[in-house]
């Protein structure tokens, strides 16, 4: 990549006033660095990934409303987590977390366990229990 070819496309970096460093070759064939504001191929990839995440979140929201899963699953998706990550944050085994996704099991959780989840998601127990998201 030549120094003047370092892409300066519009990207999500702009909002945070953030530029990334790229390595490129100058006119004399010497390596140097140049700041880049972004590059379309990866901006598209990132946007697609975010869109896929949002789809997961809204699908989960619907499942909570239909009382198919507990709100835990929704908050997990909202925080871009998956089961292993959530399990390690609350310090509860994966199979137990998965069980807590069942509305019937979730209903009977004691306050101590609920508090653990609420702390991870940074909300109150009351908010965690609401199913009208």
């Amino acid at each position, binding site marked *: *990549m030549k120094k003047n070819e*370092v892409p300066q496309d519009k990207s*999500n*970096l702009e*909002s*945070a006033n*953030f*530029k*990334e*460093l*790229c*390595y*490129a*070759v100058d006119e004399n*064939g*010497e*390596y140097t*660095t140049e*700041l880049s504001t972004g*590059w*379309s*191929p*990866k901006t*598209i*990839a*990132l946007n*697609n*990934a*975010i*869109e*896929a*995440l949002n789809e997961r979140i809204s699908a989960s929201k619907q499942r909570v409303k239909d009382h198919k899963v507990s709100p835990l699953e929704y908050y997990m998706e909202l925080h*871009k*987590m*998956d089961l*292993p*990550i959530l399990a*390690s*944050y609350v310090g509860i085994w994966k199979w137990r977390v998965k069980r807590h996704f069942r509305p019937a099991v979730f209903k009977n959780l004691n306050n101590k366990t609920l508090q653990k989840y609420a702390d991870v998601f940074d909300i109150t127990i009351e908010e965690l229990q609401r199913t009208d998201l």
Partner: protein
Amino acid sequence: MEIDFKHKQAAHCENGVVANLMTYNGFTVSEPMVFGIGSGLLFTYIPFLKVNHAPVVSYRAMPGIIFTRFATRVGIKIKREKFRNAQTAKARLDENLQRNNPVGLQVGVYNLPYFPDEYRFHFNAHNMVVYGKRDGIYLISDPVMETVTSLTEKELEKVRFAKGAFAPKGHIYYPTAFPKELHLEKAIVKGIKHTCRDMLAPVPVVGVKGIRKIAKLIRKWPKAKGTKIANHYLGQIVRMQEEIGTGGGGFRYIYAAFLQEAGKLLTNNQLLELSKEMTLIGDQWRDFAVEASRIYKNRSNSVAVDQYDHVATLLEDIANKEEVFFKKLKKAI
């Protein structure tokens, strides 16, 4: 207290931290030099593991290992500590700052407030330097940022004790002993040999063979998983290749910069030629990203299967080029 620490932006966080810490201690080493001596370049496909619901490929060596290799090869001693308890972790960090010792930290990205929202994923192998504390606020030099930043005690604790894969556990590290003079020549040879060995390894998921394996998978995905998932997977590969920290082209440009610097230092003209060749290979990786983005740009489900074959062919071509390249590099050193 505030330590007089010179922040220099880098492409990749780990090399950047090492280069900045070395500069602070009076040894000027460039980022590509750290990357090359630490044998950072790699390609691996990690089967059975999924991140963000997609398969994982890596263009670099495991987190932390670049610094370890760099240190042993140039004769530096590093101290590393991990903690169970957030209080001891904080106390140990403060102690070091009190002694005017800037330390490297491993942190999780998800809770970093100065990162753009879109970039905050559960990724735990980010590195930064803490170089001071003023009124309970930690002064941070994050190598991927243009300037220095700061974090409150609570924010820093959160990122130091992020959970999930590669959980940092408050990991801090800093160099403790240095040689009188830095002799890079032998270290460079060792670093290059190691990279050649990795890239030509007779393991189906590593190096050149790993690239071929991914090419094969790309051909399979649209039929086996449907185009929607195939596109998601393809997007993930491009993100790993081009995301912040790679310097472009899946670290190939940084490596070319290293070969150029090494060639001058060792007065080895072959390395200078190979650096040019590596740049061209990097360009090919960029072309692959452009072609792949054409596929996943429209998220519809009607993508012709031969387009996937086309990008897979590009990858196979890269694999062939890299195989020849690393065989030549091995002989050149």
